[in-house]
């Protein structure tokens, strides 16, 4: 077995330090080593997008990064969009609920993270822009239309 390496990362504002194998995927690190199971794994080859998280504010596939590569980084997962249990939903999450933009909810955390990054910019956002970014995520339940509605709505609220 290969030597272990130490990973220190700030995830959703909390500092973590763990000793891991270099081959450990970031997705498994978040889910198993940190217990942050809100990030989901659907394909482990970078296509489905369920495992998307923010690293330094940018969306990445956590199944295509080794945990050791996130050493020293600032990460955000679906759990980090709201401050804690019982806190009101982030406007993007609330818009997803209002628009019925999720069904089984498995792909949702990854989509939320990509869309959160997309919403960071105050520039106008067309449905085509939303769909082009959403095309990096597979959802088998919703048929996407309500997700587009939700993101449009959240964009309107965040950049009024």
């Amino acid at each position, binding site marked *: *077995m290969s030597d272990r390496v130490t990973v220190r990362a700030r995830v959703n504002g909390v500092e973590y330090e763990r000793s891991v194998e270099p081959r450990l995927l970031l997705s498994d690190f978040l889910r198993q080593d940190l217990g942050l199971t809100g990030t989901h794994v659907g394909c482990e080859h970078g296509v489905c997008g369920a495992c998307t998280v923010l690293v330094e504010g940018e969306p990445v596939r956590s199944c295509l990064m080794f945990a050791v590569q996130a050493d020293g980084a600032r990460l955000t997962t679906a759990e980090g969009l709201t401050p804690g249990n019982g806190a009101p939903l982030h406007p993007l999450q609330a818009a*997803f609920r209002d628009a019925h933009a999720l*069904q*089984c909810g*498995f792909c949702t955390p990854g989509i939320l993270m990509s869309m959160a990054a997309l919403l960071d910019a105050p520039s106008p956002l067309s449905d085509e822009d939303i769909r082009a970014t*959403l095309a*990096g995520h597979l959802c088998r339940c*919703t048929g996407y239309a309500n997700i587009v509605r939700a993101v449009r709505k959240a964009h309107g609220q965040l950049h009024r």
Partner: protein
Amino acid sequence: MASYIGERVRRNEDARLLTGRALFVDDVQLPGMAHVAFLRSDHAHGRLRGVDVEDARRYPGVIAVFTAADLGDFWQPGPLLVPPPPVPGLEFHARTQVPLARDKVRHVGEPIAMVVAESRYVAEDALALIAVDVEPLGAVGDLEAALLPDAPKVHDELASNLAARVRQQKGDYDRARADADLVVSRRFVYDRGASAAIENRAVAAAWDPKSEELTIWDTTQAPIPIRNGLARLLGLLESQVNVIAPFVGGGFGPKIMMFYPEEVLVPWAARRLGRPLKWTEDRHENFGATTQERSQVHDAEIALTREGRILGVRDVFLHDNGAYNAYGLTVPINSQCTLLGMYRVPNYESEFKAVFTTRTQVTPVRGAGRQHGVFVMERLLDLAARELGIDRLELRRRNLLSPDEFPHNHEIIFQDFAPLTYDSGDYLPAFDEAAALIGYDRFYREEQPRLRAEGRRVGLGIVGYVEGTGIGPYEGARVTVEPSGLVRVATGVGTQGQGHFTAFAQLVADALGVDVEQVRVVTGDTREFHWGTGTFASRGAVVAGTACRSAALAVRDKVVALAARLLDAAPETIELEGGRARGRGRDDASLSLGELAARANPLRGAVTPGMEPGLEATAYFGPDRGNTANGVHAMIVEVDPETADVKILRYVVVHDCGRLINPLIVEGQIQGGVAHGIGNAFYEQLHYNEDGQLLNASLMDYLLPVATDVPDVEMAHRETPSPFNPSGLKGVGEAGCIATGALFAQAVEDALGHAVEIRGIPLSPDRLFHLMREARA
């Protein structure tokens, strides 16, 4: 009193899902948990001569390795889940999947050995150390070749690869054919797809030696049958086995299959090794190990009069079972029955042969074979319309069943063993509404000619279908008002995104006069409810929903009786609203449901004779036959004649699923179903080669439609309530995907000026390119 039924109520379950707090099976982590990986067959068909696991056993971090030989008496084929229906003359040979291959492997992905290790990473390392000796045998894929005398046999002890032969008929097709002015016959092919839930399957299991209980977390759509079966297999009481299907990341059918090998092996090994175990299917495994959609080849014909009246239909088809047929004949019988659609077909003759192949097992996947029947019938009508010179919409109108023909008995047997009987429907207005929404007349009068003149190839499709839904046997529910005022609902079905936590809550909230967010629904946990079957066949809302409503009404009676006694009022004057009970016209005196619950379970004194403690009731609903939802889909497409790409410009659905509980959820189901259908029709195909190898076992090459491929569906609802249940519900889960293949074929042909004839699904640009080129030649 305000009613939640029919309201666009936001879902109760969403907050948990959106914040990452919802529990899925792969999220289960227990102290000391070990991880499982399976060695699977690379061969489609072969004799298993030996499996050497010694090196794997010695690999550091490996806890155990099991082969079929290690299972002893526990090795046995899975149960036949659905025996064949009582159709006279039916031939059926059951062969069900085995936990680990012992003598033969019969499809790529069939499990051969099970490795338990300290991590999944280590378990996969060990898989590479297992040596398997396989004597290759011929693959069986082509359905016609499979039935030839010299075909390699998937199951050696059977006479051939024939798994079943079923013939159903009504009337006398041969006579109808003799009387017909026109007979159109063609061969139609519909190829395989994957269900492709974004969550792969997973099973976690823990044996507690102190309580002697086995707890299993399973991505199943049917936790109670899993519990019952495992208890029997393991020689345990049902009360010793808890099966929990927590949040499940999409079902679409294959998660109802049981028992998957992993589903029996993981609990067995957890008990044997005394350690909690977890297996999570990876995407590559999913493409071989999770059951798949169906391929069929139909030789069909339709006989009509000159005026376009259908005299009869004959359909002879082959159905690909895959290597096993635990799900019996459900899928081909769905095809056989759904073919008749919305139409008056006086004479029908249908015969199918189900065939064993060396491919992954086929079980129901969203639509479950219905789309094949619709494809065949709608294609026949399109072809007939052209030959008769009748507008294809008009041809359909002339043959629709009229409202006075319901209930309509088609005189053949449906998958639920009951005669295929439509409960209610009103099809003509549905067609007219869809035609109006898509602008059928204007499209042909103005748009298509104008765009054609610009060199653009646009076409329109319009297709109707019925969907048998809401079948038995039964579901149950228990409703409890707790002293906190919260209402608890427990039911046996599992949930995979259909919004049961909300739809059931709406039914119960209405019955008890409480806020819908005060109703907490628990599904998929055998500790909560003992009896039930599962979520399949678009039946959750109809069957379990009706049980929830019945239980809630029984609780309501208890609430009313108790409130009447405590408020000293006549029971018929008690009103329930806003979570309180009060006598009519007596606003001063009321009791909250919470207070009533506390009073119904006193710590001192007595419960009045004839009463039960608590505000709780359990009810069951077992419909003796299913419902018939229906819909009409219409679509406008544009074909790029250079690339052969197809772009959907508009998509309209007029849908009738009886009474709507929650339009928000229903519309979501339809939009999602349409996306699934678009995948089936134009993107998704499992490409097996002649050696039985699946060539696209990844999401890189198996193309699920993405956001830029799926239009925003325009919808209209019609409601013809079902007379078979008190709320008039039908069912909606599969509706969206049933019509899409037929719709694509019709619209694309229209766009290309009928230069090509489409007889196969899925289409693809490559396929269309070749059709167009052949047409030019």
